[in-house]
């Protein structure tokens, strides 16, 4: 039985290689022309990987696959229970003008994912729990009911909001400015629609500004049109809160040209929650991912941040150059350099970050 499973997985892997299909990050999805749900259990991406994602992680993503058929990890403990996880540990060095540099090793996070399928392809319960460092912290926990025949699903509980590229870097300007990232889950309900070429979600949640109290809410949605070589998406979010109302609009797109994948996102924010009243903010992201060879990726990102469109000469930019190496299945090494540039009066806006990250996952 095991040999049969391994052979089937290998066959899928060969097909994946031959057709240069998806991996498990936004740029990888664009590379293969797939939706996030191709590799992840969550239709909006991130977290627990499905059968397809795990096959890819073991056979296509790494420079070399080691172990024999017995070493295959399928993710399922039983027919109804699936587990996964991520561990990230890093060494970072921060340098800022007029300050001594800081460097340290740190365990960034250990996360465990679990999904119980109470009714196959219909009803499931999903949990995303950060178990280290420090105490456990729940990031996602929801029940999802799907209608696979028509592409609809609805989920309720705590989850990440659907808005723009779900980047691995949560400190990207587009994620910080919109306030929507994988560090800011919210509680509510989400309605989604998934077909081969369309992906759409709308979520009604509390909103970050109403975390303490308040009667407001947040409505967030996006729609993405997916083609084999490119995709484009529109996203919007509106928050009503005692602190002030906030509107966010964004457009994001991806394109594959040969071995390079291009990602872009532009967001505009209008926020009434500032002491002086309304402030308009904006951010841009451009990313190029160059698949140098199997298991090797060179990533270059350029970002732009406009903290207040009514104030001149306050813009910030950020450059990142990363090398991502996956020597064997389930193990990734990342090394990168980030250069922040902002107004000369603010040292933190002109810092430099160098890092090496060890990423293990299953």
């Amino acid at each position: 039985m095991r040999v049969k499973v391994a052979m089937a997985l290998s066959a899928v892997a060969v097909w994946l290689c031959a057709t240069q299909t998806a991996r498990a990050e936004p740029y990888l999805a664009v590379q293969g022309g797939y939706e996030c749900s191709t590799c992840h259990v969550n239709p909006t991406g991130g977290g627990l990987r499905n059968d397809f994602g795990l096959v890819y992680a073991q056979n296509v993503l790494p420079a070399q696959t080691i172990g024999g058929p017995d070493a295959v990890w399928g993710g399922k403990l039983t027919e109804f229970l699936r587990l996964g996880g991520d561990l990230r540990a890093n060494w970072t060095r921060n340098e800022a003008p007029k300050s001594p540099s800081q460097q340290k090793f740190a365990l960034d996070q250990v996360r465990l994912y679990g999904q119980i399928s109470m009714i196959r392809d219909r009803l499931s319960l999903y949990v995303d729990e950060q178990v280290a460092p420090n105490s456990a912290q729940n990031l996602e926990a929801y029940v999802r009911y799907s209608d696979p025949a028509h592409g609809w699903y609805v989920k309720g509980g705590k989850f990440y909001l659907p808005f723009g590229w779900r980047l691995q870097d949560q400190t990207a300007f587009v994620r910080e400015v919109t306030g929507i990232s994988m560090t800011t889950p919210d509680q509510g309900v989400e309605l989604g629609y998934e077909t081969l070429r369309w992906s759409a979600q709308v979520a009604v949640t509390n909103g970050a500004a109403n975390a303490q109290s308040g009667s407001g809410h947040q409505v967030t949605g996006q729609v993405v049109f997916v083609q084999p070589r490119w995709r484009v998406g529109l996203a919007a979010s509106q928050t009503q809160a005692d602190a002030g109302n906030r509107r966010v609009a964004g457009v994001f797109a991806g394109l594959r040209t040969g071995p390079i994948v291009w990602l872009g996102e532009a967001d505009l924010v209008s926020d009434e929650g500032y002491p002086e009243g309304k402030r308009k903010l904006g951010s841009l992201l451009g990313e190029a991912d160059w698949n140098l060879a199997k298991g090797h990726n060179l990533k270059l990102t350029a970002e732009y941040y406009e903290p207040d469109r009514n104030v001149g000469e306050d813009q910030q930019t950020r450059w990142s150059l990363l090398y991502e190496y996956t020597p064997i299945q389930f193990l990734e090494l990342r090394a990168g350099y980030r250069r922040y540039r902002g107004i000369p009066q603010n040292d933190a806006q002109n810092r430099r970050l160098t890092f090496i990250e060890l990423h293990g996952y299953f």
Partner: protein
Amino acid sequence: MQSASTGVRGVKLFNEYSSMRAAWCRFAPLGFLGASLGLAACAGKGTGLDANGRPLGSGGGVGGAITADFQSIQDNVFTPVCTVCHAGAGAPQGLRLDAANSFNLLVNVPSTEVPSLVRIRPGDPDNSYLIQKIEGHASVGAQMPFGGPPLAADVIAAIRQWVSDGAQPATAQAAPAVFKVLSTAPATDDLLIGSLPQVMLAFNQEVDAASVDQQSLRLERVAATGEAGSSELVLAKLSLPAPNPHALLLTPLSPLQPGHYRVLAHTAPGLELADINSRPLTLNSSGVGDDPVILEFDVAGDQ
């Protein structure tokens, strides 16, 4: 025959498309690199802004060495570092750390991540969630500031001391009794190399736009020893920057020549600068005739 011709044309079109596509694949990375370089050059120069990126005189803190009092912590930490994320209606955990909201949302307010702890418990830094977050041993979540270097040890020590001392609010500031200049750019006695695009004056109150005309302030070049005359008027445009009514801009109409310059205020009734409460500008400096000097600086030639 016609179909053969169409076929040849189709092959040509396909070849053209293929070569265009190859060129695109070849040059797209260079284009991206160029665009990225251009983008990286777009960082703001910070002209007329304080260290927090806000217009001078708009109420931002002035920084300086941190001390164990709320105003200093606000000016050195909360505003310049934390409000990058913790501001506006999208502030994580609803925690806004701008100067108008931070104290009320911190002291004796339960944390949303660990509701059994309050964010700041006066007199008890070890059981204040904010302290745990910035020191990196909170039971939940990442160390703050998120994605940035940890705060320096002396900064954390000052915040701890403020909490130990009872987490008192900033000393209440009475409404300013007079209308006066807060800061200038360039600063008094600055020596500038080359010319200067504009002079900026920041006030402690909003300027009454109706009181601003081309005679409210004047820029003079003081004659050097040996030059004829005592001083000459420098033609300059006077304007209020729209987003910041606390500031005035003096823009010379032509590049400033090397020399000693001063900005003077008119004090004649009807010509004086006033704030939105119709209070005239108060200046303690010595003057030239009846008009006090607001600012003096020197311009040296390019080396």
